[in-house]
């Protein structure tokens, strides 16, 4: 795959120069910390709101550590996915629309390397942001709320990593198919929101679908088991690979505008 190393270097540098290496992990960290902190202060906040009659006892069952982490991951599943899709919605189309890609693809490089370098940069950003944010959330949860089951917490996060990766990959694919970045983001987010919704409506029939990942992660963290996950993981991996292959085909057929 000619040009991969050089292109990867360029994507890496672009993530740094566009501040993505800084702000995306920071936002994940904030989302991660806020979950345990807000639960911790919830009784106080209700108290401060002060509409309760004197002597009323507020009794909120204190959530378990696993529940807090599940909540954090849910945030990542929605807002994290939104950020990733919006960050990469123009990955290919912008290079086509502005003409920067034409100048690269006339060089003796492979279109597969062009797409793969973008995918690897996206995957690295997803992995780093999720790891940083989740670590922060975990730390706060243990300090403020209580212990968590390490194995399940790791597995739950891994499922969400896969979820973010498949959303990001499809954003990349749509950016190679469609001219408009907004349409690409909308398609990627719409597809997976619909998939998650359908899977929650028909959990048995769609047990293999990537839409099961969020629910499976929650089950792991709350109940400690989620049944067999291999079909879901395998299908999701296929979706990721398929997205990259389709993007490569699109770039090869239509390198420039």
């Amino acid at each position, binding site marked *: 795959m000619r040009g991969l190393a*050089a292109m990867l270097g360029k994507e890496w540098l672009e993530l740094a120069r566009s501040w993505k290496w800084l702000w995306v992990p920071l936002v994940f960290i904030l989302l991660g910390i806020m979950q345990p902190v807000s639960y911790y202060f919830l009784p106080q906040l209700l108290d401060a709101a002060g509409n309760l009659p004197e002597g009323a006892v507020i009794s909120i069952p204190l959530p378990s550590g696993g529940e807090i982490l599940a909540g954090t991951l849910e945030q990542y599943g929605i807002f994290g996915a939104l950020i990733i899709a919006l960050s990469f919605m123009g990955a290919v189309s912008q290079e086509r629309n502005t003409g920067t890609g034409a100048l690269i693809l006339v060089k003796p490089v492979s279109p597969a390397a062009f797409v793969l370098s973008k995918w690897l940069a996206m995957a690295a950003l997803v992995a780093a942001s999720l790891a940083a944010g989740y670590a922060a959330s975990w730390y706060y949860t243990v300090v403020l709320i209580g212990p968590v089951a390490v194995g399940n917490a790791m597995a739950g996060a891994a499922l969400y990593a896969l979820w973010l990766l498949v959303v990001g990959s499809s954003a990349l694919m749509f950016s190679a198919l469609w001219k408009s970045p907004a349409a690409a983001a909308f398609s990627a987010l719409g597809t997976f929101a619909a998939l998650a919704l359908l899977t929650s409506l028909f959990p048995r029939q769609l047990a293999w679908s990537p839409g099961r990942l969020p629910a499976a992660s929650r089950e792991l963290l709350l109940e400690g088991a989620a049944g067999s996950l291999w079909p879901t993981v395998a299908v999701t991996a296929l979706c990721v690979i398929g997205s990259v292959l389709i993007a490569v085909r699109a770039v090869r057929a239509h390198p420039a505008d």
Partner: protein
Amino acid sequence: MKPLLTAEKLVKSFGGVRAVDGISFAIGEGRCAALLGPNGAGKTTTIRMLAGLLRPTEGRIAFTGLPERSDIRAHIGYLPQSPSFYGWMSGREYMMYAGRLCGLRAADAKRTADELLARVGLAGAGRRRIATYSGGMKQRLGLAQALVHRPKLLVLDEPVSALDPVGRREVLELLKELKRETTILFSTHVLPDAEELCDDIMIVRDGRIVVQGSLPDIRERYREPVITVRTERDEASLEWVKRRAGKAGGPVVSALPFEDGIRFAVSDLDAARRLLLREMADEGVKVARIEAGYSTLEDVFMKAVST
């Protein structure tokens, strides 16, 4: 003439419209060739097929000395009409990136980048971000990045038409230097640019090549006696020009109107002059200027691209 690149019956259709409609040509090694024609003639489409950005609907492109299906991009340096770069990179970083993409090692890429930046006069601006470059600077950076892998053929799409007069001069001078060391094909809609730089010219119109040959050869082949008449803009004169347009006969071979007059290609200069002068006197045409002589390249170009 040993051809470096041959294009055979290239066709490109976009949804039924044949933007390029069977173009064939050969570019001799070491020559400088121009694709000359009005906007929309199919020049850019042809060039983008050569650069590998468009796949020809029909026809083939062959590079001498290379197997049929090998990657000709390694031997072509391409500069689009208005190149876009990553604005967040510096000129030097972009050059090094281009070099690495062409397979240079990091150290070689660095050396080549500095050499070429100096060559196009960007040594001082190399560390500035490209977003701050002017149009002329971007064009020169574009030229430098097209040269990074020492291509056998340089393919340039309207290299000077988007530039101001100063930028245009700079790039033209650079191209004059470059044509001594490499083969160049460029497109333009400006005849003087082609005349200044080129050995060979291909005039394109409606997706076809209508005139093709070396510059002296074209001048010789299409040399014909011409009478040019400019008139006042009064009604009788304009009416006569309109009536005379396209009408041949006798010593007049063709009649082509232009902005403020009409140009006759003739077979016999003396006979035609007598005929036209008498006719204009009879019709009361107010002649501003009449000129008899031989056709210039501009006449050939105008005739080739007008209907």
